[in-house]
């Protein structure tokens, strides 16, 4: 018995060494040109090169060592755990939920409500700016966008790669209409949503007949068209310069956040001058918008139209043969998804005070879609978690000053932000292809609501 396990162990070790050598050789081949050689411009502006063998060796060693660790230790460990679980016969789904699990939503909501107050108390008025603005608002914008896209991709199963176009429509509607007509944020917020929804329908019409990947490429093309028009229609949009000086939102028209205004918020309340109050107000505003999105999504799922979306996602032919009008179903999904994108866009414009086509590149669409899929399509909680992890994680990277002490003063963690974001996308997908929340609660059920493992559901067949 013990002999067998020893020989098995040396077998694993031998295999691990072999695989590690292979991984090292592959890494050498892959990185030889791109890491081993650096190209740069010299003083005469000529392109020249120099070698970086040390860095290349580091890459090779990292690849070999991590492959060795995976094959020799991590994989056998995972296999053993899986075996033990299969033997005990307890399914994960039927596990008793703890207190935290049961009340997760309430806890999360309370935490969000006290978050700005807590950060003011802990970091001071000015110090709270970073936490409220960079983390809180930034993450919540992505939560809202991802929840909006979730209606199109997660519920109706229509793959949309150009969602950022509606975000852009919302942002530019607010920027242009407030600039030319002086309308207030509270009037323009619903208007931006309506305009975006209108564009959603315009996009929806031609692509109604398309399925799956054809739909994906046309939505991508639509997103690019909107961006290119924003760049080139300089008379209206000022092109790549963007529109600046977009007015701030007011406190429901009662107090203004403009510094010079007589009814300034800080003056009215006798507070010290700081932009932190405006940011805290914006935080609660985007939180309310997120809640609205979640509320509408949850309500819609219980209504006939939401049921029709989910039926459409599961099987379009069955859907059609049951007499569901797929045209209106798809169009409403596009329109409602786009509307929330438009709201988020108007909010984005008033928060930044500046919009330019730079903010609405394809990468943004990809990031939003990644958050939806990584969170587990259709699951609002999962998507919110994914947004916190992915956006919060990359924002956190800006704060990591200590890395400068490790890698030297030239090290700029921001450079690696998107690189790590992409790697995280790949790693999460490979290990959890169903996203963070893989199981989902059915909307329609007989007698008792049972969680369904994500592996039994299909989606996104357009």
């Amino acid at each position: 018995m013990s002999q067998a396990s020893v020989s098995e162990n040396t077998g694993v070790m031998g295999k691990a060494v072999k695989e590690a050598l292979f991984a090292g050789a592959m890494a050498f081949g892959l990185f030889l040109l791109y890491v081993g050689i650096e190209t740069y411009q010299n003083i005469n502006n000529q392109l020249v090169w120099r070698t970086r063998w040390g860095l290349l060796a580091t890459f090779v060693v990292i690849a070999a060592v991590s492959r060795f660790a995976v094959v020799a230790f991590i994989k056998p460990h995972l296999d053993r755990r899986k075996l033990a679980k299969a033997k005990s016969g307890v399914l994960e789904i039927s596990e008793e939920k703890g207190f935290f699990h049961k009340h997760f939503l309430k806890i999360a909501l309370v935490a969000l409500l006290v978050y700005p107050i807590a950060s003011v108390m802990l970091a001071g008025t000015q110090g709270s700016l970073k936490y409220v603005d960079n983390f809180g608002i930034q993450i919540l914008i992505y939560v809202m966008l991802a929840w909006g896209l979730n209606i199109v991709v997660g519920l109706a199963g229509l793959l949309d790669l150009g969602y950022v176009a509606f975000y852009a429509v919302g942002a530019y509607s607010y920027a242009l209409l407030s600039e030319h007509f002086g309308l207030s944020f509270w009037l323009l917020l619903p208007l931006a949503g309506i305009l975006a929804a209108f564009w959603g329908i315009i996009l929806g019409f031609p692509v109604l007949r398309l399925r799956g990947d054809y739909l994906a490429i046309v939505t991508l093309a639509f997103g690019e068209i909107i961006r290119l028009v924003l760049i080139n229609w300089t008379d209206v949009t000022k092109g790549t310069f963007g529109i600046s000086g977009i007015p701030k939102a007011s406190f429901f028209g009662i107090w203004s956040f403009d510094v010079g205004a007589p009814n300034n918020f800080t003056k009215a309340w006798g507070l010290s001058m700081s932009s932190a109050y405006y940011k805290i107000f914006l935080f609660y505003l985007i939180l309310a918008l997120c809640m609205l999105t979640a509320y509408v999504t949850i309500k819609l799922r219980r209504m006939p139209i939401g049921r029709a979306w989910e039926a459409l996602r599961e099987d379009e032919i069955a859907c059609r043969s049951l007499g569901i009008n797929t045209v209106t179903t798809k169009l409403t999904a596009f329109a409602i998804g786009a509307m929330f994108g438009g709201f988020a866009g108007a909010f984005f414009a008033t928060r930044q005070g500046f919009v330019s086509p730079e903010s609405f590149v394809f990468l943004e669409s990809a990031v939003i879609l990644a958050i939806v899929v990584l969170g587990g399509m259709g699951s609002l909680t999962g998507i919110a978690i994914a947004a916190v992890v992915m956006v919060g994680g990359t924002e956190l990277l800006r704060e990591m000053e200590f890395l400068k002490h490790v890698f030297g003063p030239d090290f700029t963690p921001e450079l690696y932000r998107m690189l790590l974001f992409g790697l995280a996308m790949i790693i999460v997908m490979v290990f959890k292809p169903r996203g963070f929340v893989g199981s989902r609660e059915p909307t329609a059920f007989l007698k008792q609501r049972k969680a369904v493992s994500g592996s039994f559901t299909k989606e996104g067949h357009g």
Partner: protein
Amino acid sequence: MEYFIQQLANGLTLGSIYGLIAIGYTMVYGIIGMINFAHGDIFMLGGFAALIVFLILTSFFAGIPVALALLAMLIVAMLMTSLWNWTIERVAYRPLRGSFRLAPLITAIGMSIVLSNFIQVTQGPRNKPIPALVTDVYHFGAITISLKQIIIIAVTAVLLTIFWYIVNKTPLGRAQRATEQDRKMAALLGVDVDRTISVTFVMGAALAAVAGTMYLMYYGVASFNDGFIPGVKAFTAAVLGGIGSLPGAVLGGLLIGLIESLWSAYFTIAYKDVATFALLAFVLIFKPTGILGRPEVEKV
């Protein structure tokens, strides 16, 4: 008239490059039904490999013949991208093959972000200019055609012939076509499906490397974000021609190249990409499976 023919030549050159990239998209889509978003960045990696080889060669052998340098650039770039695409398929796509359809799409988008940022970090964000490799031009009346353009069109034509032969006449091509039609059945009949898919990725990558080298030779500059726009256009070309169809990819590529150059010549250069994308939407409305695509038969 001369102006028109001149623009036609420019369009065909550009279209050849798009066609070469589009084949990689269309083959991968045909065989595993996935949009390989990272393919545009594989094209960019090919361009960079060619650039680095060019720098090394010219610093060691100052007077090297251009043809030899180009050949070396092509071969190294093809090897490089093949290795990359093979590894990417193994690491990021193969574990997800049985999963739902969006999972490999997300890893592909992630891979695209990783590749362009990897080059940005390791090679720097600035544009990399190289001196012109091929400068000869020929005059036919008022029409000027450069040797670069002739090389690009000729290389594309030769490669397409070789490619067409491989797919239609060799056992490897037969395995590919079988896998495309029915993966399970092909596996039952003794086709090594994993290997066939790997080979498909390698072939697509090699063509993308050729396109990358040609792009570098034509424009004389490489940048880390060169992958996105040509990648999207090539994918548009593949869809326009009917995704999954090899002649369709080339036809789509040529069409997009022509539209782009003719639109910039006769209308405004600012909206040339808008014209391309609008044409795509227009074609798909009337012919949802592209120009040469087979209509999908759906079984219930």
